[in-house]
């Protein structure tokens, strides 16, 4: 499972992506992923919002994560 980081999230994490191999312990849902990231990078908790997209669709906390999913961490958007 690959997790992509954009905008300020990329700056906080210090990387544009992170791969969870299947062997490694990896989060099973969007909610777990968020918890795990916030534990490791507390600055993420200070953002106005923190959304997650699974296979390029916004996904709520209960959505499960699978091995081949492309997951993205979406800090507050500011286009336009």
């Amino acid at each position, binding site marked *: 499972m690959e997790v992509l980081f954009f*905008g300020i999230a990329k700056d906080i994490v210090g990387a544009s992506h992170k791969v969870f191999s299947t062997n490694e312990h990896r989060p099973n849902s969007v909610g777990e992923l968020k918890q795990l990231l916030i534990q490791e990078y507390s600055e993420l908790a200070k953002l*106005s919002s923190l959304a997650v997209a699974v296979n390029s669709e*916004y996904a709520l906390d209960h959505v499960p994560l699978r091995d081949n999913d492309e997951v993205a961490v979406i800090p*507050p958007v*500011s*286009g*336009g």
Partner: protein
Amino acid sequence: MKKYIEIVDQIDTSTVYAQLSHPHSGGICVFVGAVREFTAQQEVVGLEFETYEKMALKEMEKIADKAIDKWNLQKVVIKHAVGMKNVEEPVVIVGASSAHRSECFEACRFLIDTLKETVPIWKKELFKDKTVWVSAHP
């Protein structure tokens, strides 16, 4: 083609009317967002945009489809630029054509408002002495 949806390096304003024009359209409304020189009294040197392109295009398609459906539009344009943009450069262009003018005005406003809420694009303001990710913090 009914929808022109793109992430681009440069916004080309010269093609938008040809793309939105249609024999059934009496009205075409277009909004262009550009880089302002000042934000909250501070001089902006430029803006830098990045996007999650695959998802951004999907979200822009959804916005366009909603607008076409709601206002019975003939054509829709949604284009956003990425990379470094200087003061006065266009960064986004949205537009709609419809039989009468109320519909294209309302649709155009909806396109830009919704783009700003949902499309994964991020803007960093570059000042002389610092950079700020817009809207990141409360």
